[in-house]
């Protein structure tokens, strides 16, 4: 019990938001893509992924390798194979429907009228082929249709399939309360298991039903029977009521029976629970999985420094952190997600020892600090002061043996610098950049402007002090006897 309490205490509000958000996203994906072929295939790939994990845990090297390859290609396969279905689903949904609505097809098709007409056509042995589209677009599967856009009526449907009508051999496509196309040519099924007495109409109905989610009604001209094709199933309908019922089921829940509405509610509730359980499982896998250790080197940041002081020295510039967490989290860590910030609010002039604790380190969620090295950082603070220092010229190279530099003048002789009192109290001279001697080949007076080099770099020139000086030097020919 205490373990459960301890575990609950480790859960942060971010974890709750994380799980809720992702559960909802998963649930919405289910709501949007349910009853589609793409969704069924995705479920299949999910099982494949579980199978792969089991194979890995059992040590089945070849199996896990093969399944891993298949699942890796899963996303690509789904997108390529079901691009049409995915596109049509996303196109027919608005933003609200995608986020929180429950997609229901608007049932405006006069189902009873269609059922009655089909029934009468069957009795009259008038051949007919009627397509009721589902969610998917049919443009890529249906060809040569003549746009119609006529309101559905018994007379109109009968006239379309009347034997002398020029479009009676093609299919009529009904969307909503309109016949949108007539004389449409459907893809023929290549199945070998269809009854031999099925003619072209039946094969066309089966072909379209196989490749889309449309429902296709066939009225046999020879036998006067009504056949329904949806998915891979084809069956004969005897009664007009049965046909109406099937049509309602195909078109959505608006006219569903009470039982089917309740079933849908149960289905959605179950889907929501499965989504939550799945995401919780994944969250456990990510955050409470096997520990992976990683060592990172992170620069130290200082905060709350007294504005009158400045940092003149630190024992280290970065710290080595040993971190642990699940492999997925540890592998996704970026250095900028980790910060080490030491508080200089209580620091004084001189050497300060600051302890590095877990409170001073910002880590990404799910990452645990195992070790810090070093655990103490020494920071030397100083108060900036001003000091006037003489400038000394630095020479490099070699002056010719026949020459001698008698004297030199530096203008200005002294410059004012700003820096930490501890450093400046020990500094008595500032030096110029090196001036080459090798270029001097004859006697005379020369003038050169040269920069002044401040060391350590924390020193700066006081306002009004230039970072350079003018050096005037006098070179003479060396006399044999000296002077």
């Amino acid at each position, binding site marked *: 019990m205490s373990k459960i309490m301890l575990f609950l205490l480790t859960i942060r509000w971010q974890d709750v938001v994380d799980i809720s958000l992702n559960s909802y996203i998963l649930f919405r994906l289910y709501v949007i893509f349910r009853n589609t072929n793409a969704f069924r295939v995705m479920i299949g790939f999910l099982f494949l992924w579980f199978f792969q994990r089991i194979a890995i845990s059992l040590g089945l090297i070849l199996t896990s390798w093969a399944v891993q390859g298949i699942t890796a290609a899963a996303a690509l396969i789904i997108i390529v194979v079901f691009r049409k279905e995915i596109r049509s689903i996303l196109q027919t949904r608005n933003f609200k429907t995608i986020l929180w609505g429950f997609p229901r097809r608007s049932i405006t098709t006069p189902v009873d009228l269609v059922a009655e007409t089909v029934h009468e056509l069957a009795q009259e042995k008038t051949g007919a082929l009627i397509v009721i589209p589902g969610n998917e677009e049919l443009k890529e599967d249906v060809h040569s249709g003549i746009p119609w856009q006529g309101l559905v009526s018994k007379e109109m449907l009968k006239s379309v399939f009347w034997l002398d009508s020029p479009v009676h051999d093609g299919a009529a496509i009904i969307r909503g309360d309109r016949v949108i196309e007539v004389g449409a040519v459907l893809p023929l099924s290549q199945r070998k298991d269809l009854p031999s007495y099925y003619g072209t109409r039946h094969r066309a109905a089966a072909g379209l039903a196989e490749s889309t989610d449309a429902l296709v009604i066939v009225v046999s001209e020879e036998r006067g029977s009504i056949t329904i094709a949806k998915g891979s199933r084809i069956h004969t309908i005897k009664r007009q009521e049965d046909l109406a019922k099937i049509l309602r089921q195909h078109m959505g829940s608006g006219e569903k029976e009470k039982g089917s509405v309740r079933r849908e509610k149960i289905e959605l509730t179950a889907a929501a629970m499965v989504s939550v359980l799945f995401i919780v499982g994944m969250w456990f896998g990510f955050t409470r999985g096997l520990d992976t250790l990683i060592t990172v080197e992170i620069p130290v940041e200082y905060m709350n420094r007294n504005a009158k002081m400045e940092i003149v020295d630190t024992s280290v510039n970065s710290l080595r952190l040993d971190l642990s967490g699940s492999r997925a989290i540890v592998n996704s860590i970026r250095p900028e997600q980790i910060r080490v910030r030491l508080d200089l609010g209580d620091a004084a002039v001189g050497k300060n020892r600051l302890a590095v604790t877990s409170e001073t380190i910002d880590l990404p969620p799910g990452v645990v600090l195992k070790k810090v090295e070093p655990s103490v950082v020494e920071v030397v603070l100083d108060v900036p002061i001003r000091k006037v220092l*003489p400038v*000394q*010229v*630095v*020479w*490099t*190279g*070699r*002056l010719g*043996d026949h020459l*001698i*530099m*008698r*004297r*030199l003048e530096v203008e200005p002789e002294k410059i004012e610098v700003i820096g930490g009192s501890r450093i400046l109290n*020990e*500094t*008595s*001279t500032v*030096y110029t950049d090196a001036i080459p*001697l090798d270029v001097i080949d004859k006697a005379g007076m020369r003038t050169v402007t040269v920069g002044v080099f401040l060391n350590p770099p924390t020193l700066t020139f006081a306002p009004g002090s230039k970072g350079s000086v003018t050096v005037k*030097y006098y070179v003479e020919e*060396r006399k044999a006897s*000296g*002077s």
Partner: protein
Amino acid sequence: MHRVIKIFSIVSISLGLLVAISSVGLCVEGNNPPQAPVPSDCTLLEAVMCEEVSAQSPKNQSTVFSIALGEISCFTLFGSVSKETVVYHYWFRRDTLIKRIQLHLNPPRWRTFSSIELREADKGPWRVEIRDRNGIVMEILRFSITD
């Protein structure tokens, strides 16, 4: 009689207080002696860096010396040497003290010098601080040792 004793007592107490006050004053004075500048025993008349000192004179004064010379000197001439005393030559490479040389002076005028041998590691900016026996800097000579 009583009156004499009374006067004697008053005088004694007054004297005692006077002695006490003056002794306290002396103590205070003794604790805080006046910070008068200590007069130097000598005056620096000349200070130069040179390649060598020959016949008590500096030869080839310069501000840049090649390491090939092997040795350089700091020559100083003092006047008004009131008594036997000492001065010091502090040799610095950059801000690091390399050598401190004590030199004796004799009245009334005295020439003296110090030298260092040059090595490869000696290249860079140098200075020699000439200080009196109290450590007060009398002069700073700046020069460079090069290739």
